[in-house]
């Protein structure tokens, strides 16, 4: 019997809302949105946690310029605080080593993290999801009954195809979907907005392709001033009821 499963609810009890940033396909901006959203909410004086569950391409520590921190051991692991955000990631444990993790290992590591992480009280826990509908996605659905999904997509046919599958599954399971954010828009196609309509999902807004975004990675101040974050901030402001 897996004792760890008996303590997860208690570990999450002090968290008001759990939001998984997902989109099934890789490289559509899940990590960029997750980190920026965590920063914005923290700046708005919410207590925010950020959990990077992409064990193969963990990005949030790079995005936020995290260096030389480690969780504190205190009745479990208390996430290090980075730019006001309580931050938990597999990189604390693997650093820059390649980690060959099959699904069963990913699942076990997620259960372990959820069982030992002491988030204490949070208004939001933002989860940066890996691509796919595999162990990580199935485990957050299974283990976090209050989870809500925030969907990211690009206008590419390839991204829309994947994200459509994820949305269909979430809807069939009656899991709340906050809505869909279009990212990296370059042309004028309305494909994401139209897909949202067809799928019956809230279309939240567009973040354009930001040619200066790469230069902001690793620097929280620069990120906060980027066009990317400004557009995300406008989306959050426009849908005030959604995230509070």
């Amino acid at each position, binding site marked *: *019997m897996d004792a760890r499963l008996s303590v997860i609810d208690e570990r999450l009890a002090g968290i008001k809302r759990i939001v998984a940033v997902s989109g099934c396909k890789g490289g559509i901006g899940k990590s960029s949105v997750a980190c920026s959203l965590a920063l914005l909410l923290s700046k708005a004086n919410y207590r925010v946690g950020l959990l990077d569950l992409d064990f193969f391409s963990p990005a949030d520590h790079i995005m936020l310029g995290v260096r030389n921190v480690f969780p504190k051991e205190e009745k479990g692991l208390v996430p290090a605080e980075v730019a006001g955000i309580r931050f938990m990631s*597999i990189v604390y*444990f*693997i650093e820059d*080593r390649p980690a*060959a993790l099959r699904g069963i290992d990913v699942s*076990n*590591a997620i259960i372990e993290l959820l069982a*030992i992480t002491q988030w204490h009280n949070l208004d939001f826990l933002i989860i940066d999801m890996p691509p796919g509908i595999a162990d990580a996605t199935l485990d957050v659905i299974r283990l976090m009954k209050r989870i809500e999904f925030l969907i990211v997509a690009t206008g590419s046919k390839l991204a829309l195809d994947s994200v459509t599958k994820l949305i269909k599954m979430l809807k069939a399971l009656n899991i709340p979907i906050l809505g869909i954010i279009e990212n990296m828009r370059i042309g004028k196609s309305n494909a994401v907005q139209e897909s949202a309509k067809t799928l019956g999902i809230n279309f939240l807004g567009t973040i354009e392709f930001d040619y200066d975004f790469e230069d902001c990675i690793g620097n929280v101040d620069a990120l906060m001033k980027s066009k990317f974050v400004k557009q995300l901030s406008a989306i959050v402001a426009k849908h005030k009821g959604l995230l509070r």
Partner: protein
Amino acid sequence: MHEWSLAQAVVNAVADYCARNSCKEAEAVVVLGELQQINASVFKLALKEILEAQNMRKIKIKIEREEAVFKCRVCGFQWNFSRTKKGLNASDAELIHFIPDVSHAYIRCPKCKSPDFEIVKGRGLWIKEIKSL
């Protein structure tokens, strides 16, 4: 002292069992897998503290140990954690202590160097048995 968080997991599991079976006296057998390197005395102390705080003094928890065994998925070779542990420095071992699965970033098959091995047993903590007394 992250052992405390796992001790609480065990106590919760036993409490759930007791609630389901309407009993106040129970015994659980907890297995500590070698790979997780749980400090048994710290763990026992945490168990005692939590059981007392939750008014569960009639719960007995026995502790067993299980050695960790790996099996390479590429060449089939099987080995014990004790064999590869020597190659780990203290801080790597500490990281495996928190999340045993990250051993896939630190341990390789001694025969073919693959990181693609199965943790056959001894990964970490689990409950072998709970029974009401």
